[in-house]
């Protein structure tokens, strides 16, 4: 079968641009996803991530740029001929068809013989652990089950690419976590090149081989989850993923930065030069009674998170630091917090 040859294909997006009237949805986005890779496109609503997905799926034609799957240019190919599996945000199951007929649909469209359809539908239902649900209607299933059907329908025809458009949004937290792991397991097992869209940074960190952070129709940074989290390229990425303390200042010496409040801190990895920088320190890197880079202030808010305590410490007028650690400090108490020189990530350039 032709689909088999190009399975595990890579996806390349080259300079794709799309505008709606005066609004630029995509400003020349380039991206490549390796065969079998799980790439997450992470961004707030309006960042252009959904438009990018639609361009890849073929539901939107880009004003400029090309989309290539497995070396074949599919920019002008109709969605029906792209052989891409997609799971929609609301699953988009056909409400008038049973589970089995929903899953059989893409096979029927490919004129697969009846006996083989039957076999593959049963196989796909087993893959998502829905044996025995074939005759039910989507409306008779729970949210999690509906999502499994959508997933089975999206992979049953051996697509070259799997697209997931915020598929976990409608599920409650516990179900969401188990579905995430299930999707990941399935994706690994089938070796499917996968593009996953979400605005949930936690989800992105858990699932992805790599994450592309989008904002304003452009990719701000693309990299492994720990790259994105520990070494964000700019303020937007730093603040969108996880919680962060951003300290603004001026380089004074190869290892010293004078913050705008007047405090001087020691930092590794400045790499010389002059000019203004921002220092990102994650709340969990902030320590109470740190030996270096100390700030003294008052706890304005103390939140118990179960596995940790989160403190908001006011160290100067209008400057608050987030601290995450194991020590409980009541609100109102006076504390000294700080960070080690190697725990600050330097972001250069104007804010």
């Amino acid at each position, binding site marked *: 079968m032709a689909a088999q040859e190009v399975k595990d294909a890579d996806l390349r997006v080259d300079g794709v641009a799309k505008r709606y009237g005066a609004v630029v949805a995509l400003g020349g986005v380039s991206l490549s996803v390796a065969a079998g890779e799980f790439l997450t496109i992470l961004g707030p609503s309006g960042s252009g991530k959904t438009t990018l997905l639609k361009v890849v799926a073929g*539901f939107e034609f880009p004003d400029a740029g090309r989309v290539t799957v497995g070396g074949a240019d599919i920019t002008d190919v109709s969605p*029906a001929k792209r052989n891409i599996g997609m799971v929609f945000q609301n699953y*988009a199951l056909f409400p008038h068809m049973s589970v089995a007929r929903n899953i059989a649909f893409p096979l029927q469209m490919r004129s697969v013989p009846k006996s083989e359809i039957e076999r593959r539908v049963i196989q796909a239902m087993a893959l998502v652990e829905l044996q025995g649900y074939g005759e039910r209607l989507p409306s008779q299933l729970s949210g999690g089950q509906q999502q499994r059907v959508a997933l089975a329908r999206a992979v049953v025809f051996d697509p070259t690419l799997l697209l997931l458009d915020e598929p976990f949004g409608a599920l409650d937290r516990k179900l969401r976590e188990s579905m995430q792991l299930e999707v990941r397991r399935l994706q690994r097992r089938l070796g499917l090149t996968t593009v996953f869209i979400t605005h949930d940074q936690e989800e992105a960190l858990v699932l992805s081989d790599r994450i592309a952070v989008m904002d304003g129709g452009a990719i701000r940074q693309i990299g492994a989850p720990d790259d994105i989290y520990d070494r964000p390229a700019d303020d937007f990425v730093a603040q969108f993923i996880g919680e962060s303390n951003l300290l603004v200042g001026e380089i004074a010496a190869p290892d010293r930065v004078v913050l705008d409040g007047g405090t001087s801190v020691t930092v590794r990895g400045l790499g010389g030069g002059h000019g203004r920088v921002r220092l990102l320190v994650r709340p969990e890197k902030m320590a109470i009674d740190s030996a270096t880079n100390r700030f003294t202030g008052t706890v304005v808010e103390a939140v118990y998170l179960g596995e940790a305590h989160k403190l908001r410490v006011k160290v100067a007028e209008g400057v608050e630091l987030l601290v995450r650690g194991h020590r409980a400090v009541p609100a109102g108490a006076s504390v000294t917090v700080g960070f080690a020189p190697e725990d600050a990530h330097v972001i250069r350039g104007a804010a």
Partner: protein
Amino acid sequence: MLLLLALFAVPLLRLLALSVESGSLIAYERALTNELYLRVIFETFKIAAIVTLLTLALGYPVAYVMATSGRGWQLVGIAFVLLPFWTSILVRTYAWMVMLGRNGVVNRTLIGWGVIDSPLPLLNNLAGVLIGMVHVLLPYMILPVFNAVKNVDPNLVLAAEGLGAPRWRAFLRVTLPLTMNGVAAGVTLVFTLSLGFFITPALLGGGRVVMVANLIEEQVRELLNWAFAGALSAILLVLTLAAFWGISRIARTRPV
């Protein structure tokens, strides 16, 4: 409710009472055994069926295009569909007489374009009645279908296309079955309304197309046979209710 009872139910019951006033069912017997009257009833159903099919064939595409276009065009479409509602049915029917006559706008235009040599017989026959009735009843088909198409999640169509269905197959397998409830509503409305049509066949049929309602009018106005008119009315009412029940039954048991 009381008003409805007073203005609708009471006269209806009186009419039905008239049909059996003489204490016998002779009027019913006459209506249901005389071949002439049976033919009129059959003609009425035939015309209603043709009108229903024509409104469906014309109305579904219009409703579909309206429902799937942008908000602005949708409002324009609805305005055009509803516009005739603001005009009296009598005025519209007279307008068709002007349009369809031997020397009417349609024939003159077609001859002017050289499409035809001699005028088409469009008035005082079945064609005229069908044109007039379809025009009057089209909104009753378009609006429910429009509503049904609008209620189909556009993502379902995208999903079908993404799963390998060309547009027409996505339409046949997803949009069409999901809009059958609208089609059933439109068919029920148009068919049952058609059964009781009077003005249009009277004016555009030129006496050559007789539907049950025309027969009733003739009995009352010309022959003053109230009992027989009442019987015909009762028969029409029962048949209309039966049609209504039959169509909604078929619509409900349609295979999924």
